[in-house]
C-alpha cells in the first residue's frame, strides 16, 4: 500500500485511519461488551464511523441518511427494545452463548477469505473521489431512484408499510 503523493490524500488517509480504527474498536465492543446499553452506544460510534466513511468517498446524501436513519431511528429502537425487554441496564454476564467460540471459528476464516479475495482483485486501485466528474450529487441519486430503481422504490414503500403493520400486530399487547 503506497500512500498517494498529494497532501490532501494524506489527510484523507489519516482521517480514514482514525475513523476505521474507531469503527473497528466500536464494532468489537458491540460484540464483546457485557452491557446491552453500552453496546447500543458503541454501535452509535460504529454507525457514525461508517457515515463518515460515506462522506469520505463523497456520498453525502447516503452519509446523512445513515446518520438520520441509523443513529436517529434505529439506535433509538434498540434502546427502546432493550428497555421493553427489561434487559439489565448494567453489566450482564449472560449475554454470550455457551458456544460463542462457534462465532470465532466462522468469523476468522471468513475474514481471511474476504480479505484475500478483495486484495487479490483490487490491489492498489484508487478511488478518485475528488474529481468533480465522478461526484455523485443528491440529484443524481434521486434521478436514479426515480427512473432505474422506481419499482424498487415503490416496493420498499410497501415493504415498510407491511413491516409496520405486521410489527404492530406482533408487538402490541392484547
Amino acid at each position, binding site marked *: 500500500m503506497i500512500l498517494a503523493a498529494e497532501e490532501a490524500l494524506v489527510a484523507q488517509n489519516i482521517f480514514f485511519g482514525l475513523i476505521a480504527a474507531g469503527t473497528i474498536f466500536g464494532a468489537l465492543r458491540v460484540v464483546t461488551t457485557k452491557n446491552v446499553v453500552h453496546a447500543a452506544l458503541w454501535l452509535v460510534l460504529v454507525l457514525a464511523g461508517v457515515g463518515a466513511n460515506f462522506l469520505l468517498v463523497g456520498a453525502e446524501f447516503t452519509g446523512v441518511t445513515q446518520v438520520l436513519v441509523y443513529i436517529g431511528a434505529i439506535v433509538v429502537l434498540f434502546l427502546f427494545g432493550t428497555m421493553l425487554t427489561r434487559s439489565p441496564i448494567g453489566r450482564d454476564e449472560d449475554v454470550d452463548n455457551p458456544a460463542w467460540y462457534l462465532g470465532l471459528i466462522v468469523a476468522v476464516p471468513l475474514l481471511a477469505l474476504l480479505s484475500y479475495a478483495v486484495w487479490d482483485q483490487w490491489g492498489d486501485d484508487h478511488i478518485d473521489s475528488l474529481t468533480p466528474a465522478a461526484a455523485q450529487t443528491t440529484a443524481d441519486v434521486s434521478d436514479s431512484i426515480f*427512473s432505474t430503481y422506481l*419499482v424498487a422504490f415503490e416496493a420498499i414503500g410497501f415493504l415498510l408499510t407491511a413491516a409496520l403493520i*405486521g410489527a404492530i400486530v406482533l408487538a402490541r399487547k392484547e
Partner: protein
Amino acid sequence: MPFVAPYLDYHAFAPELVLIATFVAVLVADLIGERNKPLLGTIAGLGLLGSMVPVLTLAVADEPVRAMFGGGYVVDNFALTLKALFIIGGYVVILLSTNYIAEGDFWEGEYYLMLLASILGMTMMASSRDLVLIFVALELLSIPAYMLATWRKRDPKSNEAGLKYYLMGVFATAIMLYGMSLIFGVTGQTGLAAIAASPAIAGTAPVITLGVVFVIAGFGFKVSAVPFHTWAPDTYEGAPTPVTAFLSVASKAGGFVALTSLCLVGFATQEEVWQPLFWVLAALSMTVGNLLALRQTNIVRMLAYSSVAQGGYMLAPLAVAGHSIDGRRESIGALVVYLLVYGAMNLGAFAIVIAVARKTRSGEISSYGGLFQYAPGLTVVMTVFVFALAGIPPLGGWFAKFVIFKALVNPGTSAGYALAIVVGVNSVIALFYYARIAQQMWMQPVPDEDRTPIRVPPSLVGALGICCLVTLVLGVLPGLVGEIGDLAELASGR
C-alpha cells in the same frame, strides 16, 4: 444530465397493480369495521384471481417480452408462468387459511395483508432482473413471511418458528448482500444483463467466485438447500400450517426464480462456479433431506424435510443448465414444471394436514392411523399427494421428476448422469417415508378409536379440489404443463 421519466408499460405492471389495489382494499375494509372480517379473505382471494386476468392477457398478447428500466424489470413468459404460480398458489393458501384464521385467535385482516405483500414481492421477483430489485423483492416477500410465521402470537412454537426464520433470513440476506456488493464492485452494474455483458465478470477471480457463491448461498436459504436449510423444519413445524404451506411452495419458488434469473442471466459466464455448486447443493439437499425425513414423527416436520429434498431435485437441473442453449432451455423447463407440479402436490398435502388437524389436533404421523376408516376421501386424496411427491406415475410428480431426469441426462456429461443416479436413489429413500404416511392412513388401526368423520369446510374442499385435479391431470396429460415449461423461456434481458 436531465431527468428522463422512465417508460412505464402499465399492462406489464397490471398484475402487481391489481395486487396493490387488493392490498389497499383489504386494508381499508379491515379498518372500516369489525363486521367486514369474514369478507377479508374473499376480497383477498378475488383480488388474487383478478390479478390473474392481466397475467393471462399478457400471456396471450403478441409482445413476448416487455422490458423496462433498461432490462431491470422484464415481463416474459418465464415471469408470467411464475407469476401465475405465485398467484394461484397464493389463492390456494388463502383458501387454506380462511377457516384456520377465522377459527383460531388471529389477526385476520393483517394476515391477509401480509400474505398479499409477500405475494406482491414474489410477482415482482419473477420480473426482476436487477440486483437492487431482486434484493428489495426478496425482502418484500420475506419480511411479511417472517411475521406470518410468528402469527400465532401466543404459541411459543410459533414464536420460535418466527424467530428462527427471521434470524436465518437476515443472516442469509446479509451474506447475499455481501455477495451482491462484490458482484457490483467487479462490474459496476446492477442490471443482470449489464452484469453479464460486463467484460470484468467473464474471467475467473476469487472475488467473483466469492460473490457468486455468497449470492447463491443467500438464496440457498430461501430454497432451503442444505446446509442452509436448518430453519425449515423448525419454522414449518411451528408456523401456522397455511403459512407453512405458503413458505414451502411460494416462498421457495420465489427463491428458485431469483436463482434462475441470477445464474442464467447475470452469472451466465460463471457456470464453472455455479454448476458444481448447484450439483453439491442438490445432492446434499436431497440426500440429507430424505435421510432426515426418514426419522420424523411429526408430519409437518417430515414434509419440511421432504421439501428440503424436493428443493434438491429442483436444484439439480440448474447443475447442468450452463452447457448449452438447449441445456438451458431443458433446465429452466424442468425447473418450472417441477415448481408447478410441486406447488400443487405440496399445497395439497398441507391442505390435508390442516383438514386432519381439525379433528386430531395433532401433527404426529401416528395420529393418521386408520384415517381410511373414517375419512376415506381425505385418505385417497392424501395418498395421491404423497405418492405424487414420491414421483409415482400416473400422479403428477412423475412427470416433474421425469423432466428433471431428462434435463440431467440431456447434456450427456458424467456429472449429469451421476446426479441423475443420486436423484434416482433418493427417490427410493423418499418413497419410504411417503409410503409410511400412506401406511398409517390405510393399514394402521385408529389410535384412539375415535371415528367421527372429519368435517371439511368448503374453502378447504376447494383447495383440495384444485390441487388434486392439477396433480392428477398433470400426471396423465403432462403435455399441458410440459408446454408451459417449454414456453417459460427466460429472456436474457434487453
